[in-house]
């Protein structure tokens, strides 16, 4: 197994002089691969979250290594992929699932991580007493966990051993996994309580119930797993954009080297923060270098088919916008409202074709990256890459005609029409 890991200060943190509150590490020693990542909370009451995130990563690594060394690995034997959600109110009420030995052992691990982290941050607070300024930021001093809260952070971890693998998560950020068929997914169930800037946290009173996890012991392993803080997924929006970014990393590794990919990640994450979420960025990746070259063509095929889907969506919009425009004849009179709609449709068509041309360029580039055994035909479809045929131009209002008519209708004498 090979690793890539990096975390860096976000653009907004640079602007406000805040330290980086993300922390991540990977280890592949002694045949055990572990990736751990944490994102310290940004609110002012969590003023020691940078220490909290470093502490939870170190504590988790230690506890996980102890777990792997001491656990009877046969409890994982033959287990198919199993994913367990956080213990929400609904799940408590439903109580549909009986805990297996694996669940019990993992829950013990989670308890030991929470206890270990609390002990460590409380020790840190003793050795580094809060200043008067810091004390003012503690909003609920009566809360028995008020000290822990100042160190609040999320936690994500992936562990791979020769017999089994498991992953767990508490809070926001995303974990992506790529399998041997080149498919990607998010193996750990999402927690709907993590929404917009709200997240569950290791400092929550009921943190144990907020762990969600997955495991497998039947011999199937992910080829690559990426853990990342929400600074990354907030930069990409849709999950498939983030998966596409990870595929770029895997392609870079395959085409150059682990070192080059590591350097590229170190260069790219600050740029991504600047143009994307502005937040701290962290990513940790473990991958099977032997399997990687086999799935590479499949990953490129996925990228190409992803672009193809986007082209299809753009085509649908082009047809809708064209249908709207076809209703506007140069020979008829239209109200201002109708002309505004026509103007939107016209602008949409222009924009959609620009977008389509960019997507087609990408499609063709992915095609050229495929092995010689694959089809290398450039993208083509009935709608094409250009806006209008001459005949359509004659039958519908042009952009200039719409603008002229709108100027006329905006004259005060037409105010009654608006």
């Amino acid at each position, binding site marked *: 197994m090979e690793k890539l890991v990096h975390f860096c200060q976000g653009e907004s943190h640079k602007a406000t002089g805040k330290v980086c509150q993300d922390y991540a590490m990977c280890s592949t020693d002694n045949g055990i691969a572990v990736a751990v990542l944490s994102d310290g909370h940004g*609110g002012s009451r969590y003023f020691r979250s940078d220490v909290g995130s470093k502490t939870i990563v170190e504590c988790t690594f230690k506890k996980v290594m102890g777990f792997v060394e001491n656990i009877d690995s046969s409890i994982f034997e033959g287990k198919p992929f199993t994913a367990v959600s956080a213990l929400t109110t609904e799940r408590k009420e439903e109580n549909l699932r009986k805990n297996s030995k694996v669940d019990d052992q993992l829950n013990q691990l989670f308890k030991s991580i929470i206890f270990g982290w609390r002990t460590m941050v409380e020790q840190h607070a003793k050795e580094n007493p809060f200043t008067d300024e810091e004390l003012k930021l503690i909003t609920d001093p009566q809360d028995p966990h008020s000290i822990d809260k100042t160190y609040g952070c999320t936690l994500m971890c992936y562990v791979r051993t020769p017999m089994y693998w498991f992953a767990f998560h508490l809070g926001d950020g995303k974990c992506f996994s790529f399998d041997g068929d080149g498919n990607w997914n998010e193996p750990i169930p999402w927690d709907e309580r993590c*929404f*917009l800037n709200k997240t569950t946290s290791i400092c929550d009173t009921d943190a144990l119930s907020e762990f969600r996890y997955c495991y497998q012991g039947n011999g199937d392993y992910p080829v690559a797993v990426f853990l990342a803080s929400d600074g990354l997924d907030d930069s990409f*929006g849709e999950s498939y954009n983030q998966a596409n970014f990870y595929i*770029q*990393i895997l392609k870079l590794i395959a085409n150059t080297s682990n070192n080059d990919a590591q350097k*590229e990640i170190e260069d790219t994450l600050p740029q*991504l923060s600047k143009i994307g979420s502005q937040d701290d960025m962290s990513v940790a990746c473990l991958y099977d270098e032997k399997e990687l070259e086999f799935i590479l063509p499949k990953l490129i095929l996925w*990228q190409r088919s992803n672009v193809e889907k986007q082209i299809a969506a753009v085509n649908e919009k082009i047809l809708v916008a064209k249908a709207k425009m076809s209703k506007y004849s140069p020979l008829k009179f239209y109200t201002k409202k109708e002309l505004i709609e026509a103007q939107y449709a016209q602008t949409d068509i222009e924009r959609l074709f620009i977008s389509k041309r960019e997507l087609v360029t990408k499609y063709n580039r992915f095609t050229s990256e495929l092995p010689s055994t694959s089809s290398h035909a450039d993208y083509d479809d009935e709608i094409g890459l250009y806006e209008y045929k001459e005949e359509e131009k004659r039958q519908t209002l042009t952009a200039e005609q719409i603008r002229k008519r709108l100027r006329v209708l905006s004259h005060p004498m037409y105010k009654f029409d*608006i």
Partner: protein
Amino acid sequence: MGLLDDVVSVPRRTMTLFFVIDTSGSMAGNKIGAVNDAVENVLPMLDEISASNPDAEIKVAALEFSSGCNWLYDEPKLASEFVWQDVTASGLTSLGAACQELNTKLSRNGFMQTPSGSFAPAIILLSDGGPTDDFYGGLSKLKANNWFKNAIKIAIAIGDDADKDVLTQFTGTNEAVFTVHNIDALKQIIQVVAVTSSQIGSKSSTAGDTTKQEQVIKDVTEATKDINGAQSEAAPVNSTDNYDDWD
């Protein structure tokens, strides 16, 4: 090959500002004229905020409600591209239907994108009366909506006949309800609320742990002190300006 080649261009985050406008018959005349005027004039300001904000771009959506409800456009538009179409007043006050419609669009199948990459929306409700339909039925569904729960919600009560209890139910607090008593105050408060909500709503960092709604309320409450004929419902001021004058 750079890692950002072939990756979709990383979008700025998006914050959607919703205007929910009462266009019932009682709004006819100066009130609806002032709303049309104010919203049209505030759009370039929102565009400026969006253009100068590295954190997020601002999109605008507008829902009018009278005997039923209607979106001005079938998707949120960038503030720079939103062409205001004057709304006219007639009919009843179907605020319950508006709540249901808002609930439908506050979803990924509606107007919202994935929560990753989005900021909570800002919703500005303007009304001069009380609902004539099943408001609480509509609101109960809306209140369960995660986007709505996290939204900045501000209500502008247009005159003394506005049902402030209903507006308080909508926003969740009477501190977020601002009453206006004349045309100038209405125009000014629309501008202040829209600009403040957009400025605060589209920023990635918040001051301490106060919510964005609390920050907007604080700033708008402060601003209303300088607007003759406007007041915060939570801190009404006795003044000769605070009687209705819509002529």
